[in-house]
């Protein structure tokens, strides 16, 4: 079993709205996989199908080698889940809820529970109604991380956490990966995904538009070139050069991988004062996908 999660052509509609429209997703065992997309792209629907809470309309979904709908209870012993919007029972304390969720899952490491409670600085004796959003999130995180589940399904787990706790969360996820656990991290915080994940899937309108390691995704795209030159250079009209901006002797442009050699040659001829050439950040990749897609949709004749 190489893949912890395998989804092919998954579809799910709610009434007339198609939440998932042929989604493909593959999460390999032992990796941290970032599942990126804006609100309403279908991330939560995907996770809820994986949890057997929703029934798929069509396509295939396999979780830890089992059917998420049919084998829900047995599979749930092997995974832990953190919802994006944590609702707790107001009359129970955080400590009680952590213990309860652990027992419902079939066991909880009390030493890890203790350590995590201290690391996340949670007061477990407080009633849940007195917790802020961030503290409610911590309750769910501690309950999930203190389990010995082999797969963690995290749906925007850092929403509401302060930057310090977010850093603690990143440390925890790094440790989980070293311990060999698989993590599906749904998020729209791209810096977090970039720092933590081995591989990334970008989802848009219920469909995966990009998947792979960050390096692979960058390889397929343009690099950003920004240079100050000694003399003028002619780059416009050159194949593979996009979004060219020339301000006197300064040029900025995006360059396809294949055209990079040619562009750098011409810059060199003109004489280089300063030069940065870097791959796009995940955020730029992500935004580019969305903007280009929106433009296509907006421009499509209907």
């Amino acid at each position: 079993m190489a893949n912890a999660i395998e989804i092919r052509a998954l579809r799910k509609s709610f009434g007339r709205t198609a939440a998932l429209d042929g989604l493909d997703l593959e999460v390999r065992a032992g990796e941290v996989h970032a599942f990126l997309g804006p609100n309403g792209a279908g991330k939560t629907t995907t996770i809820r199908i994986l949890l057997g809470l929703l029934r798929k309309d069509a396509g295939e979904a396999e979780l830890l080698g089992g059917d998420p709908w049919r084998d829900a209870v047995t599979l749930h012993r092997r995974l832990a889940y953190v919802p994006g919007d944590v609702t707790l029972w107001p009359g129970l304390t955080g400590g009680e809820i952590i213990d309860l969720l652990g027992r419902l899952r079939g066991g909880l490491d009390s030493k890890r529970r203790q350590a995590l409670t201290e690391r996340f600085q949670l007061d477990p004796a407080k009633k849940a109604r007195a917790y802020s959003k961030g503290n409610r999130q911590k309750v769910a995180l501690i309950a999930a991380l203190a389990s010995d589940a082999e797969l963690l399904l995290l749906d925007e787990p850092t929403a509401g956490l302060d930057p310090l706790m977010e850093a603690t969360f990143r440390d925890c996820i790094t440790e989980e990966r070293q311990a060999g656990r698989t993590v599906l991290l749904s998020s729209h915080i791209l810096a977090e995904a970039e720092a933590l994940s081995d591989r990334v899937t970008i989802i848009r309108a219920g469909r995966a538009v990009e998947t792979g390691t960050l390096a692979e995704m960058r390889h397929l795209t343009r690099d950003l070139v920004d240079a100050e030159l000694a003399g003028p250079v002619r780059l416009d009209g050159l194949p593979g050069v996009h979004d060219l901006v020339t301000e006197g002797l300064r040029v900025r442009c995006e360059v396809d991988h294949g055209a990079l050699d040619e562009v750098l040659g011409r810059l060199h001829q003109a004489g280089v004062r300063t030069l940065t050439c870097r791959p796009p950040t995940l955020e730029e990749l992500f935004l580019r996908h969305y903007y280009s897609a929106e433009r296509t949709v907006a421009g499509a004749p209907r």
Partner: protein
Amino acid sequence: MTVLAHPGRAGTGLTGTGVLATLALRRDRIGLAAAVYVITAGVAVTAWTLKRLYPTPAGRAALAGTAGANPALRFLYGRPDGTSLGSITTWRYGVWAGLFAALLAIFLVIRHTRSDEEAGRLELAGSAAVGRQAPLVAALVTAAAGVGAVSVLLCAVLPLTGLPAAGSALLALGIGCCGLAFTGIAAVAAQLASGARAARGIALGVLGAAFVLRGVGDAAGANGPSWLSWASPLAWIQLARPFAASDPWVLALPLAVGAAGTGLAFALAAHRDQGAGLLPDRPGRATASAALRGPFGLAWRLQRGALAGWAAGYAFIFAVCGAAAKGIGQLLGTSTALEREFTRLGGQAAITNAYLAALMLLAGLVAAAYAVSVIGRLRAEETGEAAEPVLATATGRVRWALSHIAVAAGGAALLLAVAGVAAGLGYGLRTGSAGTWVARMTGAALGQLPSAVVLAAVAIALFGLLPRASVGGAWTALGLVVVISLFGQALQLSHWILDVSPFSHAPRLPGGPVQAAPLLWLCAVALALSAAGLAGLRRRDIG
């Protein structure tokens, strides 16, 4: 510039009240209208029924005499004040209408203050151009509008049943003023507690205390502490003496309580933070006890507080009603129509048996309501997304549902047993044969259990198969069954319709025959409906 031009307006703390009040009325338009209608219709139907049952002054005089002589009935309804139809209506329903108006006010005030605060909605509204006091004022306006509507409608409707207009107006005002008094009390409770549940508990506790104070005062004999009644807002409706020597100045008392409560609430509100109460939130356990284990432990933990409250209420009410059974024959003898009705409602045996059997029918219906509310919690957990983390663990859907179903069935059984024991004790101690009557009444009460469970099973079936309509559907089914069971024969409905109610098939005990077949059928129907609901739950989407 415009902002700086109105520093005074920003400082009033009332900005946005109108918008918030409109929003509250908009959100509650259906429930509030229904509650106002039910309270108004309750009074009007009582007046109309009493007119039919006691058409002659002699009959009403006999009723007032007997009712006034029975301390248990005085505890439940107050003292009859005169023999006119209006006086009898005020005696029979005045306190209870006041109680319902107070409940309406409490639920509205808490809902639009602490519940909204707890859900974070007030925070969102409060961040807009909304004054600090605006949410509380808006909640008070909403509650006042609700009880005010009851008053106005009663003023209009009661004269239609043939009651004098002046007395009707005083009764209607008394009921409305009682609601206003509890609006103020609820406003204070909303500042004291740290959450909506606790705030509601404080306000309901005050209401319960008011009922007991009034009951003890009214039940007290000539040398007893009858002055206690004056301490209870629920008694002031009757103390204003509508349809008798009317004394409208008494209604200054509830208005004063309402005003004082409102003032106190504003003073307290200025001293607390949003989301916190003046009474500190006690810290709980840092780790779960061994009992909080598995879905059943969780369901029990979530429902045990409410069940304890219901059981206490059951014990109290049915002990008093059981005690009132002694001498009931005498009371019913004052109306031939009522005597006929009671014998029809409760079987053909002696009137006392018929009364006790009718009491057990009520216990059964209310236990069914409890069970339906417990099943409703399943849907609330599902839509509130508290079910999601549980179902994401190694807890199957059916086990999760069964955990609450067990509380519903077990809780209904417990409530009925409490009703039986309490009624048996109440009646038995007064007649000197407690042992016999406790056993007899416990059996009689538990005879209602299969019927109550059938209604819970209807709720389960709806939850599994039609989740969106399940809560409304289950309460509608319960409402229909209540109407059929209580009024079906009086309305001369056909046998087919009467047989729809599971309570038509329950044994009428004490006094009636017990047959195994109908009980077994009821159990079979309950099992089939539950199984259908659970099968539906396994198949459908959660959320």
